[in-house]
């Protein structure tokens, strides 16, 4: 649906389900899903690291699958369902992947953590018992500069064990 705003720039109504809740926004066509989540909806757990799809800090789940929200236009996501890091813990109880990141020391500066955790969660959703190699494949699009990935891989494997 298209509407004419006061300025000459066309705005589009976008309806998104974010973390289970319906959100509606009026956006310019050039707004990315990342900016819509951060600037309009205040889901700032989704981070801006490179804006070009190279770092994975902006990873969210779109209809359950991890994507770089910096490369997706908000208008293209209209009608879809998004999970951000804020949607993982339930009533103050952490998701097992979050819990494992905390307890295994997988978090240092924390800037990659939301994207990293969502990539890990998505992996365990499609493959509850991954090998170490599969974990590394799944997070290869999430760059981390602090950890050398050692404890991140450990944490995701531990969360998988907790599944069983």
């Amino acid at each position: 649906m298209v509407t004419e705003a006061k300025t000459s720039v066309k705005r589009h109504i976008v309806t998104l389900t974010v973390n289970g809740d319906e959100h509606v926004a009026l956006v310019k066509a050039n707004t990315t899903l990342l900016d819509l989540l951060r600037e309009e909806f205040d889901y700032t757990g989704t981070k801006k690291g490179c804006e070009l799809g190279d770092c994975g800090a902006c990873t969210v789940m779109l209809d359950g699958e991890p994507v770089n929200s910096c490369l997706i236009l908000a208008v293209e996501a209209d009608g879809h369902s998004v999970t951000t890091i804020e949607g993982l813990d339930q009533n103050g109880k952490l998701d097992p992947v979050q819990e494992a990141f905390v307890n295994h020391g997988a978090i240092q500066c924390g800037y990659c953590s939301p994207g990293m955790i969502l990539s890990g969660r998505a992996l365990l959703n499609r493959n509850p018992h991954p090998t170490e190699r599969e974990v590394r494949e799944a997070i290869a699009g999430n760059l981390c500069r602090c950890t050398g990935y050692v404890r991140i891989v450990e944490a995701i494997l531990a969360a998988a064990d907790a599944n069983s």
Partner: protein
Amino acid sequence: MIVPQFEYLVPQSLQEACALLGQHGSKAKVLSGGSDLIVKMKNGLAKPDYLVSLKNLDELKGVRYEAGTGVIIGSRTTHNQVIANPILREKYPSVCAAAATMAAYQIRNIGTIGGNLVNAVPSADMPPILIALGAQARIVGTAGERVVRVEDFFLGPGRTVLGQDEILAELVIPDQATTGSNYVKFGLRRAGALAVVGVASSVTMAGDVAKDVRIILGAVAPIPMVAREAENVLRGKKVSDDLIQHAGKVAAVESKPINDIRGSAEYRRNLVDVLTRRSLKAAIEKGHV
């Protein structure tokens, strides 16, 4: 970084999409996955006035098999869908494996096989294997449909045979007697790296004779390059390590690499030699397609 402004058009049919593209000509671009186009726009390398979104054209998604035609891959099929597709995994696992060498998981959920071709980047990973398997591109325009070999699809970096009103709709991998194929990529990192060189090959073996051989080189010429001389080294011959060695050398000589920040021409020629040998060996020995 800001995506420059544009008018967003969402056709409901392929015909409408082509009509919109025809109407706006060079001012319009097709938006499929966007993993390349949005990057280009943010970097100021593309400033289309119109984006024609294919998001409602579900007929361009998915993989199916039609007897007598072959495996048909919709151009909007994402790389991860290609990787996971049961038909492809059974018939052409080399296509799945090539897709798995690309970028990283999240990008493979966004980027599409069609986009990988239409972008016409010399280092693109899908064209070499598709050409090696004799794939064809089904192109739809306002005037109707035409079929072009993927081998003939590229004109130069960023340029293809697509007319302004045309959309790459499907890729067809025809039924074939090929006994083995694969794509070997050399990147400077194990994920998120463009190919310094990529080599795809396919062979049709009869005993130890290579009845047919295709060798396609990526990232060493303005467009994916068929290594014809190297193919001729093996075609119709009884394969041997010596012949494979020779084919690698010949491919290196006929490749046309340039120097850039990922590697010198000299180094790339060496990689063509090495990867051609490795690709051929695997195609001949391992047998899977």
